[in-house]
């Protein structure tokens, strides 16, 4: 009975979304209330679930779809990691989006799809088997498209086409690989240690091909090079969408899927024994370096951040591919840390665009004087990305480095160092411009009461996330931090 909490969590964002679709454009108050109520209610439910999972009471719900196929919702520690991140950031992004889109057209459509998008992400987090995962993964593709093309300009539509082309092709390969795997391995429930280890060795060839197909198809959303093209072009979307896309929804769905397949379908032992992980590690390492190098030359701020995402998401995959407890910890904790840091950066980029009309890096000279709070948050996010202690990004890199040594693959350390240098090379000049270069012209002064730099709805979310970036770094060792939870996951995964 208590397992009804799982569908309740799904419905907490789905229902408000469906209602919002039917609301007339002018119903701002009702729409806002529905959005926030849904987000808060969900956060509450997630907190309840959190306590249960910490005590190893896994909730599970099975619904027969066809004879022999079930929809499985299940909450384990890894689900909760992703679920909490998405529930928290959804609340903040909703607040931000309400401020950002104030007065613009088609808001009912926007918030409707926004809620659907989060429902799909929630479903991904709560999927208990690969079939269910595929269902929600595709739902995410569809519900994100209207958000990407929201502005309705020819440029946005072109970006939408690219987005659909990549994700639909990826989804199709994923679908095919899943059907294939289902037909040789039977039910595909996520379970520690995987479900394929006991199969006939004659099938190992097929299993390796399926693994490659799964990695490539999930790699589209996780923006593995060369499947990342859609991500920078999807930058035409409104800032809250970019923020959500980069921090939790789309790219993380891909990364989360890869984690699930490696940990809970193939199993770490099996994947390592069959040498399936080394190519993944190589591809992730290449993506890390490539994304950072491309970020260097981007003048458009959002594009620079997008290439930074390409690079940073692969840290997660690199950590997973090491197949050592420390590497896993580094990768998983980066799932949360990268989300918080990147969403901060995108919120700030959105504030610049919305308040001062700044889109390019070379227009940012001295903007720290006009928007000190926003830019302080931006600086925290950027320094975190570089991995400066004691910020959250440092924790990720530290564990990744330890993991690579434990895995006996010291070359990964070189990748991490090179990437850190490159991160510094594309973020520090921006920080320098913000604070230390004289503005070219005077910024239009604030029209808000008390000379506030921008509205509260736009300012509070980035400040919150920046604060979390600091706290998760400083308090990494204490109960309740992302690191603490991830260590718990790793302990359960490795049976320590």
């Amino acid at each position: 009975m208590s397992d009804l909490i799982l569908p309740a969590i799904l419905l907490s964002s789905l229902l408000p979304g469906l209602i919002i679709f039917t609301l007339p454009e002018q119903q701002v108050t009702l729409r806002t209330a529905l959005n926030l109520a849904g987000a808060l209610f969900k956060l509450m439910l997630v907190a309840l679930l959190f306590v249960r999972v910490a005590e190893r009471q896994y909730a599970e719900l099975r619904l027969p779809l066809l004879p022999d196929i079930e929809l499985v919702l299940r909450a384990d520690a890894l689900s909760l990691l992703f679920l909490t991140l998405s529930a928290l950031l959804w609340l903040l992004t909703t607040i931000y989006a309400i401020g950002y889109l104030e007065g613009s057209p088609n808001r009912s459509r926007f918030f409707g799809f926004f809620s659907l998008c989060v429902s799909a992400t929630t479903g991904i987090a709560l999927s208990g088997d690969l079939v269910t995962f595929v269902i929600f993964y595709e739902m995410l593709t569809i519900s994100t498209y209207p958000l990407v093309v929201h502005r309705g300009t020819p440029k946005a539509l072109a970006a939408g086409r690219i987005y659909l082309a990549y994700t639909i092709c990826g989804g199709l390969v994923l679908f095919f690989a899943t059907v294939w795997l289902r037909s040789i391995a039977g039910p595909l429930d996520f379970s520690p240690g995987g479900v394929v280890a006991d199969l006939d060795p004659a099938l190992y060839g097929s299993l390796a091909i399926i693994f490659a197909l799964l990695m490539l198809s999930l790699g589209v959303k996780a923006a593995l090079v060369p499947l990342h093209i859609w991500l920078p072009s999807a930058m035409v979307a409104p800032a809250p969408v970019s923020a959500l896309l980069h921090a939790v929804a789309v790219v993380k769905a891909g990364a989360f899927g890869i984690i699930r397949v490696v940990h809970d379908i193939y199993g770490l032992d099996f994947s390592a024994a069959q040498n399936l992980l080394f190519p993944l590690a190589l591809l992730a390492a290449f993506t890390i370096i490539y994304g950072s190098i491309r970020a260097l030359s981007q003048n458009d701020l959002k594009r620079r951040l997008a290439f930074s995402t390409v690079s940073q998401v692969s840290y997660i995959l690199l950590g997973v591919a090491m197949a050592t407890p420390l590497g896993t910890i580094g990768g998983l904790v980066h799932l949360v840390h990268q989300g918080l840091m990147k969403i901060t950066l995108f919120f700030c980029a959105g504030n610049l665009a919305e308040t001062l009309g700044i889109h390019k890096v070379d227009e940012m000279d001295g903007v720290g004087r006009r928007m000190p709070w926003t830019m302080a948050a931006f600086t925290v996010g950027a320094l975190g990305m570089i991995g400066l202690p004691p910020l959250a990004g440092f924790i990720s890199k530290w564990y990744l480095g330890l993991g690579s040594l434990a895995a006996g693959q010291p070359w990964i350390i070189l990748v991490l160092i090179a990437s850190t240098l490159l991160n510094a090379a594309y973020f520090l000049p921006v920080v320098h411009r913000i604070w230390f270069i004289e503005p070219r012209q005077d910024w239009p002064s604030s029209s808000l009461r008390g000379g506030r730099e921008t509205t509260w709805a736009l300012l509070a979310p980035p400040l919150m996330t920046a604060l979390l970036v600091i706290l998760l770094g400083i308090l990494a060792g204490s109960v309740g931090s992302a690191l603490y939870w991830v260590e718990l996951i790793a302990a359960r995964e490795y049976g320590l």
Partner: protein
Amino acid sequence: MTELFLHQQWLIWLTLLPLGAAVAAFLAPQQARWIGLATALLLPVCALAGILSVTLTHADPITAGGWPTPLGIELRRDGLALVMLAVTALVGFIISCYALGYFPVHDRHYDKVRYFWPLWLFLWGSCNALFVSGDLFNLYVTLELVTLSSVALIALEGGKQALAAALRYLFIGLLGSLSYLLGVGLLYGSYATVDIALLGEMISATRLNHAAMALMVAGLVLKSALFPLHFWLPQAHTMAPAPVSAALSALVVKAAYVILLRLWFEVFPALDTFAVGHLLGLLGSIAIVWGSLMALRQERLKLLIAYSTVAQIGYLYLVFPLAQPETMAAAWTGGVLLMMTHACGKSAMFMVAGTIHHTAGSDRLSRLAGAGGPVGVLAVVFTLAATTIIGLPPSGGFFAKWIFINAALVTGQWWYLPIILSGTLLAAAYIARVLGWAFLDVKRSSYPVIPWVMKWPPLVLSVIALLFGLIAYEPIQIALIGAPVHGSIMVEMTP
């Protein structure tokens, strides 16, 4: 009370009621709308009661009028009949609601309104009669009734093009029926029965029987518009008024296919179907690719949807080669699932196209530009319905494709994989083209007023199409009652 309720002859009412209402609507054209609506409300109730009475009682077969079998007409009450009746009731109900708005009371073209209702109710009753028919001759008669009422409905729009399309449809229909009837005649000559079950027991692999099979399959293929015999479909489905297009795509092409499905799994298993099965699979594959490519090239929404139907019919024909001994149940179920979900999705799409045509005066894709605001609901209906056409989860189309891919893998017929996958990609491409227009931001000075019956009922249908995969368990269980196939739906490979 329950006894009375359960043992009512609900399935016979499903045929008699619409036929009687058709006559009434013809005689009292002023009241035709209300007669139509009342019938449309009653039929889903009858269908539900019929399903309950079969699933709860497992009673003996019913014969019309209570005459014993050789004399009376025995009704099929198996799962396939039940689910098709249910889908027809659902889609028919929505089409009827939509038609209330599409044919308003004070129409300039009074004839359209006057003739639509009797013909539509007649078509509905004929479809129901076809689904419960258990012998080859009744199937022929009902199929003919379906064709004739469809022809008249296509011609309803008037105008030269519509008449030409209707006439062509009539000739094609007659040719198909004739071919089918010849096959029936051959079988009757050999076995002196037209009962499907009896034939299935007696038939043997003789040359004559193979000729009969070829004739019957050819006739049904023509009627269900499998490539390359699909040439009549796009015009016929485009020229008809939108509610009719919806019925044609959702129900009429399925009627011929249902007959083929019955024959293939109940009469033909004793024959050598290897070559025919693979030929149908090949044509189905070409239909998928060709239909989708043509859909991609269309500038008019209705034509695009019609070509999409051509492609979807191609998927239905993959059932025959994929139904190998170990995947018999899987392929059959996949076909039935696809029929059900396609009926919901495709009819909703045609209704959207009709509404756009109705309000904007043309169904060119460019008319969709900036379909926000009050017209936005049309874009939503179209998108939701399209999920099942593309095969995105959680629609029924997704699981049907799942079953097909699984069956192709297990039986080692890997060449169907690229066909199914490329068909999916092409479908996504032509749907994305439509959506691209809908999301294009253009300022409109005014929005047309759309009657609510033309917006919300199709929305219901499209939501069902989208969620069909989540609610398919019960319908599939019902469909499998008395099904001619046994075994697992999700077959696992043995290394």
